[in-house]
């Protein structure tokens, strides 16, 4: 927001690009969980575009992004976050879009600040991003430009370098002061994680998915489901995804055709999906787990409906799994 405003204030036309990778925190979890539905549903990038009065283009890169997640040339951060490769890829995609004849832009700006992020925003990574994205010296970072060599827009005089900044480090006070000076009094929470791949728990679930499949691959539906419900893996060949509340129940019910489903008939309880290739005894175990997470938890017996993927549905009576007996290592 700040970088855009700084450039707009020099009389330059700016439009925004926002990428959808499938791992975006914003949006999905708010849309799924009922308790989050009460929260404001604002899409921050659209909100920023409105505040600035610019167009925003939201681009779906989720398919091509798989290769970045699966094979990051520069490696992962603390979890499965390929931040440097991600940045390079996004700048490359922005360049491809911006320099298309029909769009006709002359350069790209980002809000990067040297030292603000440990993996992707360091002095030594700035030229790597510019070079490997192919944007080269048409990539301008208005907030820390004075620490970097002049780019094409500065050398050509399209942008006045003297009006750019020399911010660095994790301290955001200078940016907040500039925001205040520019009359920006509301902005999205700084340093808030916006990518599930930086989340330890989520990364563990993704790694578990790859382990169980014996190969590192995913579909967009897989990564959506990792954001929802309790994931319990009693064995390598199957995993049970149990909804935690009504919103997740509704979301999981959209996958009835693609997965085996389990629902308790005798007591109120959650909907569950079974991922993998469960045997009949695995399904019985899964049903016991599902019963444990519903009102049947303290009952001696519960009756559940199992709808196998592509098979004939049947009813099963089981003893709910005692909570204290579920091995800790089953929880993904």
């Amino acid at each position, binding site marked *: 927001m700040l970088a855009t405003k700084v450039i707009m204030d020099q009389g330059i036309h700016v439009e925004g690009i926002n990428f959808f990778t499938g791992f975006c925190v914003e*949006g999905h979890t708010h849309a799924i969980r009922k308790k989050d539905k009460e929260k404001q*549903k604002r899409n921050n990038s659209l909100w920023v575009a409105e505040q600035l009065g610019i167009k925003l283009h939201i*681009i779906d890169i989720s398919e091509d992004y798989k290769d970045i997640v699966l094979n990051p040339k520069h490696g992962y951060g603390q979890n499965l976050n390929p931040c440097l490769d991600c940045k390079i890829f996004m700048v490359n995609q922005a360049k491809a879009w911006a320099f298309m004849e029909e769009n006709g832009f002359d350069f790209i700006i980002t809000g990067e600040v040297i030292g603000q992020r440990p993996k992707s925003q360091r002095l030594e990574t700035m030229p790597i991003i510019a070079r490997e994205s192919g944007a080269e010296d048409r990539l301008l970072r208005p907030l820390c430009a004075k620490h970097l060599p002049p780019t094409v827009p500065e050398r050509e005089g399209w942008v006045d370098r003297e009006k750019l900044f020399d911010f660095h480090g994790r301290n955001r006070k200078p940016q907040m002061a500039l925001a205040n000076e520019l009359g920006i009094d509301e902005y999205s929470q700084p340093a808030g994680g916006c990518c599930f791949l930086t989340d330890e728990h989520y990364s563990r679930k993704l790694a578990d998915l790859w382990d169980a499949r014996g190969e590192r691959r995913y579909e967009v539906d897989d990564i959506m489901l990792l954001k929802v419900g309790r994931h319990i893996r009693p064995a390598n060949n199957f995993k049970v995804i149990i909804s935690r509340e009504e919103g997740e129940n509704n979301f999981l019910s959209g996958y009835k055709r693609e997965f085996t489903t389990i629902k308790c008939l005798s007591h109120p309880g959650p909907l569950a999906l079974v991922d993998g290739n469960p045997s009949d005894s695995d399904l019985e175990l899964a049903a016991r787990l599902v019963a444990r997470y519903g009102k049947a938890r303290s009952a001696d017996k519960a009756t559940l409906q199992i709808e196998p993927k592509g098979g004939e549905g049947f009813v099963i009576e089981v003893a709910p799994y005692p909570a204290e007996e579920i091995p800790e290592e089953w929880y993904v």
Partner: protein
Amino acid sequence: MTEQATHQLNTRRLLCPLPVIRTQEKIRELQPGDILEVTCTDPGALHDIPAWCRVHGHTVLGSRQDDLDIIITIRVEE
């Protein structure tokens, strides 16, 4: 009263921002004056699609709820 839709877009089951992305892609194929009716199930689309329309200068003619469906009607502008 909303105008008669000339084009339909189904984004049921998709979560934001995908309904916005599909709307953006569809509108790129349309002509000014065309009326697009987008059907979604993610309540977030009720905020995001009108916001996207505002920044791109398209007009939201109305929105309504039909059971679990949310239907947003848009007039494509220049």
